[in-house]
């Protein structure tokens, strides 16, 4: 699983504008990465 | 500066409203000693006529206009209180029965 988060915010906004993805996709991506990684990293507490 | 005794540690704990065991008092005495030594270094410096810095910005009293504004809603404030009744916070008696 690769992450979108090696892009700068400007690149992310460009991708949103070009409809390559939605804000919902970005949010899903964040949750997916946390699900996959945070068991070992331990950075996150609660989720909204 | 004299090293802290267990009694001194317990006195400080009382001021801080922290219950500590005898073992904890011993452990804290050692740890506070190490830090106290560190702090003794400051005595090396001549600070005659040096003003203490309590705030890095030249901040003066910041006031708002003396106009009454709505405070917090009491029910909202009570949300995190463990025990309450009729809008008052409940606590155990101040003097043990």
């Amino acid at each position, binding site marked *: 699983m690769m992450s979108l988060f090696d892009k700068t915010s400007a690149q992310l906004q460009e991708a949103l504008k070009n409809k390559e993805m939605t804000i919902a996709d970005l949010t899903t991506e964040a*949750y997916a990465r946390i699900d996959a990684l945070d068991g070992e990293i331990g950075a996150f507490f609660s989720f909204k | 500066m004299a090293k802290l005794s267990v009694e001194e540690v317990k006195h*400080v704990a009382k001021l*801080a409203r922290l219950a500590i065991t005898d073992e904890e008092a011993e452990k804290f005495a050692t740890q506070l000693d190490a830090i106290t030594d560190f702090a003794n270094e400051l005595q090396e410096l001549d600070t005659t006529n040096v003003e203490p810095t309590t705030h890095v910005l030249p901040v003066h009293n910041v006031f708002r206009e003396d106009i009454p504004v709505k405070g917090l809603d009491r029910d909202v404030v009570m949300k995190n209180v463990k025990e309450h009744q009729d809008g008052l916070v409940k606590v155990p008696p*101040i003097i043990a029965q």
Partner: protein
Amino acid sequence: MEEAAAKDQVPFEERGPLFGLPIGVKDNIVTEGIETTCASKILEGFNPIYSATVVEKLRKAGMVTIGKVNMDEFAMGSANENSAIKKVHNPWDFDRAPGGSSGGSAAAVSAGEVPFTLGSDTGGSIRQPAAFCGVVGMKPTYGRVSRYGLVAFASSLDQIGPITRNVRDNALLLEAIAGVDEHDSTSANVEVPSYVDQLTGDIKGLKVAVPKEYLAEGVSEGVKAQVLAAIEKLKELGATVDEVSLPHSKYALAAYYIISSSEASSNLSRFDGIRYGFRAEADNLEDLYLQTRAQGFGDEVKRRIMLGTYSLSAGTYDAYYKKAQQVRTLIKQDFDKVFEEYDVIVGPTTPTTAFKLGENLDDPMTVYANDILTVPINLAGVPAISIPCGFDNEMPVGLQIIGKYFEEGTIYRVADAFEKATDFHNAKPQTWEVK
């Protein structure tokens, strides 16, 4: 998720540069409706009834708060090992600490879980974990960002700041959260400039000072080598570099621990089980206080409260707290003198790269020594950033750039110019390749 979907409906013309992007918020910043614990048992289950000013500003900028991130309990610690909830592991090496107290904030960005987090810095708590995790962390000038809603540790030292993977994003986030706030009387009534507009890429003629005290004994050879190489890069980019002295540097740690502990002992006296948080069983009020605090606070927090209470007790006030505040003035004056002639001060952010988890836990002095390069900055109140500048034994090394009061723009310009000329910020730990 409904929130994210709703944001998708907002027309592009109405969206700012951070609109819709995910962010993690350090758990000592209150978020209405989301449990806020400061990584302490004493606040387990605490549901704030208001949000911090910075959280409101994130909302206005359209960011999506994904969750709260881990930290050392009440922001006291340098390894995120003092969390009462769980440990944080450095994404570059799971056996190593991410740094602290904003360990969760730095690790989350470093691992690519979210591109932005907010941390807080009292003695290095943004910069040190940023250095250990290879990301960009900025502690703004004291008063630049509102502390309303930041659970106070040391009121004259605390600041909230952004953590990101690149400088421009860091500048954008600081622009979004900075500004005077009527709820925080210590916030500065100074205009927030556009930091992004100052990223010209040009540092020709910039005057850089390197304090000899920052590259002395205690800094590992590996870290020193990377930092010296980074300084050479700044010269290549057109800056002039001179050695200077900040003669009172070595006294900063002692002054810091006395001031911060004293202020902390006062700030943490509000945790008494009465109005919020954990409440122990007790027959009388006195025992309620004693037991609630004994059971609710972790060891490091208790230690700092003890030291602070001791510093402030009658009989040692002049020798401890007042003396420390006078030494603080001397430290501040060291910076003022250098900044009369120089634009920025640079050096390593930390003396070593990330240490192994559990390595320092028994000796408070070793853990404290990790703060020596960062705490003078908090005492003086000046802004400072840590940016990735290399690796030592495959662990990230951070370069610290310190600026004049409210000159975050200059710091960002230098950091950005360095970033454009190097590739360290693009390095990723192996966690990015997870299947």
